[in-house]
């Protein structure tokens, strides 16, 4: 069964890119999208996905805050940060907050799939 994913990014461009990579792989199924942290928390509650890809810098509520909020709802939530180059301190903060892994933009489809598959199979 495909792994259900919520994609969070303020840029539509990035969202559709990640969505295409995931849906085309056959292993993942994007079940929700959000363009800021507040939306992300809402959609998370409604869709209860297996995995979340989370942009860091977003309006309203950033990805680190959203990660913390989601982990409050479900401490076992699997969240993978999506970061631009040069944002390592933010990624470190996210992982300290409980994110499972991260991918760095610009990324290749293979890389995205590898990281997400690995996080998905973690027990």
């Amino acid at each position, binding site marked *: 069964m495909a792994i259900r994913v919520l994609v969070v990014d303020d840029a539509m461009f990035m969202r559709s890119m990640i969505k295409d990579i995931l849906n085309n792989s056959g292993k993942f199924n994007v079940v929700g999208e959000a363009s800021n942290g507040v939306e992300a928390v809402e959609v998370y509650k409604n869709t209860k996905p297996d995995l979340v890809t989370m942009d860091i810098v977003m309006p309203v509520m950033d990805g680190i805050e959203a990660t913390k909020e989601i982990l409050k709802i*479900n401490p076992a939530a699997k969240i993978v940060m999506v970061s631009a180059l040069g944002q390592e301190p933010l990624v*470190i903060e996210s992982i300290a907050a409980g994110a499972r892994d*991260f991918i760095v933009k610009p990324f290749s489809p293979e890389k995205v799939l590898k990281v997400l598959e690995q996080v998905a199979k973690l027990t």
Partner: protein
Amino acid sequence: MVQMEKYLKLFIEEAEDYLKLMDKCVHELENEPNNESSLYQLYRSAHSIKGMAATMGYEGIRDISHAMEDLFDMLVKKKMEFSKGLINVIYEGIDNIKNAIENIKAKKEVMEFSGYIKKIQDIKEKGIVVEEMEVSGGAIAYESQDDLSDKNIKNYIIEVGLSSESAFPAARAMVIYNKLNSMGKINSFEPPLDEIMKGKPCYSIIVDYNTNIGKEEIESYLKDISEVQKVNIATLKKKEEIVIEESAPPTEMATFKIDAFMLDSIYNAVTELYILNEEFQEYKNQLTADLIKVSTDYNFIIKKLYNDISKIRLLPLSTIMDSLPRIIREIAKEQNKKVNFFTKGQEILVDKGILEHLIDPFVHIVRNAVDHGIENPEERLKLGKKEVGTISIEAESESGFLKIIFADDGRGINLDKIKDVALQKGVLPEQKIMQMKDEEILSLITLPGFSTAPTVSAISGRGFGMDIVKARVESIGGRIKIESKLQKGTKIILYVPLEISIIDSFIIRVSDNYFAIPMSYISRSNFLMKEDIQYIQNEAFTISELGKIQLTFLSDLLGLERSNDSDNYYVMIMDVGNVKRGVIVDEILEHKKVIVKPLKSPLELLPYYQGIAILSKGKLLPVVDVNKLMIY
């Protein structure tokens, strides 16, 4: 039983040590409820006592310390809030164990603590703040590690090598830390977690680890993590035997002196080796399977060698900061000024090559602060300031860079005067100067030929040698930022790499040309769609989460053709002088460590190039000094 008697004394001594440590930690928590390291030590102590007691067959102590360990585990993992009410409960537990040990010493009856254990059980159940949900996959980070006391626990030394392509090695190291932490107990993690959290890049990790999971399983978990290139696991002997080894007195050869030139020579050779290896690794796909295995080992060892040798070259910042108080005192005395001087972060370790380049800037900046920044006591009193001026230097390490803030509460820099002098000297055309933002005007004092003039230093409040400071800082791939408020004071902020010669950089493409750009200039990077670029009177802008950012095409700056074939660009946001600017390139190909060699005559006359980066396959790439490029 006879066997156990032999260990009894050891058990009592060690348990008492742990109890003392626990007392100390609870005391710390009383004053500082958020002290995570105290909580963690409590957890570890209870865990250790539990293990020892179980081995000795003292079930009462085992159960009570187990219950306490669980409680601490929840606190460490923030599944429960620490509150002052818990302190008495913890003390009660410690006292219980103490009493039990006294009883053992006196060969009295063994105690049992079901009442106390029940109490902790109740607290745990009532106190839980977060509830675990049933989710496929389950909660790895929150599973308690109760079974760590069983006999299957083994002690491993694990070496993890990260791919040199890893963009965020420190963040990657944290992922590895979390993974290992969820499956067992980390006794030590090298580099230490606090350094990693500050962003210290590490491509080689060494972990002392206890777990009941087998070697092969650990290896496969780690290898699944992306960018993990190499995993080496050694199983250690029983812990007891190691304790004896550790307590052996250090041998006389623990440290010895080495000639600095010899060290430089070894360092240079290893640096070359590092780059040669990068080249070698690119041919990996041409190797046979056996050779690939050899090359992986080879790669790992060279990275380790480079890391180790880099560590040898580290010296604390205090090496250059210790002489500053004397300099300040002398100038202050000469000029009848009163100055307090504070420093922070002088313990930070920096490559000796970097330190050597920082001596002059430190002296210049501090001297300027006393000489031109701080007013004399009468003037300060008249302005309503404290009679004694303050100069401070604060250093901190931030993602592999060293950030040093020099601050004074003196008269600040007068922007109008800088403008006047700039006009007078004809440094830049009048029209350009008038359009400049305050931050940009401030950065004018770092232009060569501008600041060395004595008239400037006399009127601007700062100026002598700022061009030299800037040149020095940039020569090691660093940058400088100036902030100043009239009458309030001046801040000079330096960002320099912690390591020399191997510079973290982006390899970028503009049309058919490739360049290296040091990461120190770049605060972030991202995709940029063509339609995101807006034009106002021929000036390009984009709106990002940082606000409106002025954009420049690198091709324009370098006088190259702009490529029009693409809809997507990449933008690198840079701190230029004191403002944020976006520089557009066609592509960011990779993030790589490169060796930068200075340009030799006559090439050093090329103003916009900082040096030449040597890549694998002997390719050479110009390293663009974007800062310089944008200021002119």
